């Protein structure tokens, strides 16, 4: 009789587990949001997207750490290793939040080093990113073979970026597939802040006008609402709520930068087989607003890497 009771208990536990698994399976993966939960859209364009047919799934996506690094490089910025988060700091991160945010930061630093052919730093930062991914329990995101492949291709920027892209994809797809959207969002936020931090630190305050890197920084105004929407999907998680408060400070400063865009005109370039989306943009960035933004970003980034 006792044995039967014991088995019944196991059965109840199994049934609860079964129900839990089935419920979990139905939730979408990724930075996906059911419209039934909310109808919010990036606030800058909220009016523009009103009355649209409701979609079943919504993705909000930020520039990845790789793209952030590429944006800095393409703006003609110089490389400064002092701006990166030292790899020695990796041992200080033990919470899921600190490991997630620094996985984004180290991946951005790794991409930045890769684009500037910083051979030793590439290996060091891949190891630091691996440490964060391993700490988060992301299985096989970065394997020893990836590091070996990096070493073999250390002078081939494209090959290195492919490896970084692949390992980053492994990490964020693992998190999405395992219902860890909050952690995945924190990783993205970390990479985005790192890109913004490096950019703002590389700008010479005396040369704001006509500076391409400043243009890249202003462009991030377009992504700040996307980031907030992404984070709102995991609202209620203390780490996310804290992050939302920090990012809202950045948005308040971006709101001080007026941005006017002319209508977008698609033109097909037959010779190069590519569509060019033509438009003109005008932004007005005052030095004091830039200083405020730079300081706020540095403060948030310091809180991430401590």
């Amino acid at each position, binding site marked *: 009789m006792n044995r039967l009771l014991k088995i019944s208990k196991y059965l109840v536990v199994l049934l609860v587990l079964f129900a839990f698994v089935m419920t979990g399976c139905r939730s979408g993966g990724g930075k996906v949001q059911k419209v039934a939960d909310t109808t919010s859209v990036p606030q800058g364009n909220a009016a523009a997207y009103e009355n649209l047919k409701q*979609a079943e*799934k*919504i993705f909000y996506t*930020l520039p990845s*750490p790789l793209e952030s690094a590429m944006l800095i490089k393409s703006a003609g910025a110089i490389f400064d290793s002092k701006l990166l988060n030292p790899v020695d700091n990796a041992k200080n991160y033990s919470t899921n939040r600190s490991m997630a945010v620094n996985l984004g930061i180290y*991946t951005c630093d790794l991409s930045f080093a890769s684009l500037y052919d910083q051979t030793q730093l590439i290996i060091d930062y891949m190891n630091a990113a691996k440490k964060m991914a391993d700490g988060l329990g992301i299985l096989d995101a970065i394997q020893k073979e990836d590091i070996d492949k990096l070493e073999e291709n250390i002078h081939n920027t494209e090959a290195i970026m492919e490896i970084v892209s692949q390992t980053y994809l492994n990490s964020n797809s693992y998190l999405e597939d395992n219902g860890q959207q909050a952690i995945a969002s924190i990783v993205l936020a970390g990479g985005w802040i790192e890109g913004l931090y490096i950019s703002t630190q590389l700008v010479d305050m005396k040369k704001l006008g006509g500076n391409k890197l400043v243009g890249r920084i202003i462009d991030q105004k377009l992504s700040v609402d996307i980031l907030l929407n992404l984070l709102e999907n995991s609202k209620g998680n203390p780490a996310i709520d804290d992050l939302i408060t920090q990012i809202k400070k950045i948005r308040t400063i971006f709101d001080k930068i007026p941005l006017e865009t002319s209508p977008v005109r698609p033109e097909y370039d037959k010779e190069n087989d590519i569509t060019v989306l033509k438009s003109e*943009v005008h932004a007005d960035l005052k030095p004091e607003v830039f200083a405020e933004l730079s300081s706020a970003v540095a403060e948030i980034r310091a809180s991430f890497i401590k």
Partner: protein
Amino acid sequence: MRILKIFPVLIICLLAFNPDSNAQCKAFAKSKCLPELGEYTHDGNYHATVLLEGEEAELYKTFYSDMDYRMVVCNEETIGKVEFSVLDANRNLLYSNKDANNSQVWDFKLQSSQQLKIVLKVKSTGQQGMNPPSGCVAIMFGFKIKK
């Protein structure tokens, strides 16, 4: 003793009814979608989900000036082709793959940075039945590395 027979059955159900559709979707995205990026470097972000025929998904992303982008949308053969359209912040249609023989690949660049919205819609194959077919839909972005 009967209960002892049910026990392993329940375990099997637990495993069998845990459809690893997410992992399947990931494998599909990596094997079928990623190679379509060709010479463009994947940005590393993962956007894939299971959609039913007739369902829509939306994606919001900022694209930057002076970058060469490739967008790839692919879907499992269990569902009809995916139509996608690209809209600007004022809901103006900038591109639709319907006008390009339902091409799943689009190369583009921007004169100035813009936040764009991409709408994906799974076309219906017209099959009748209680359960409309479903399948994985993935969208990936790549950019060209500039030296």
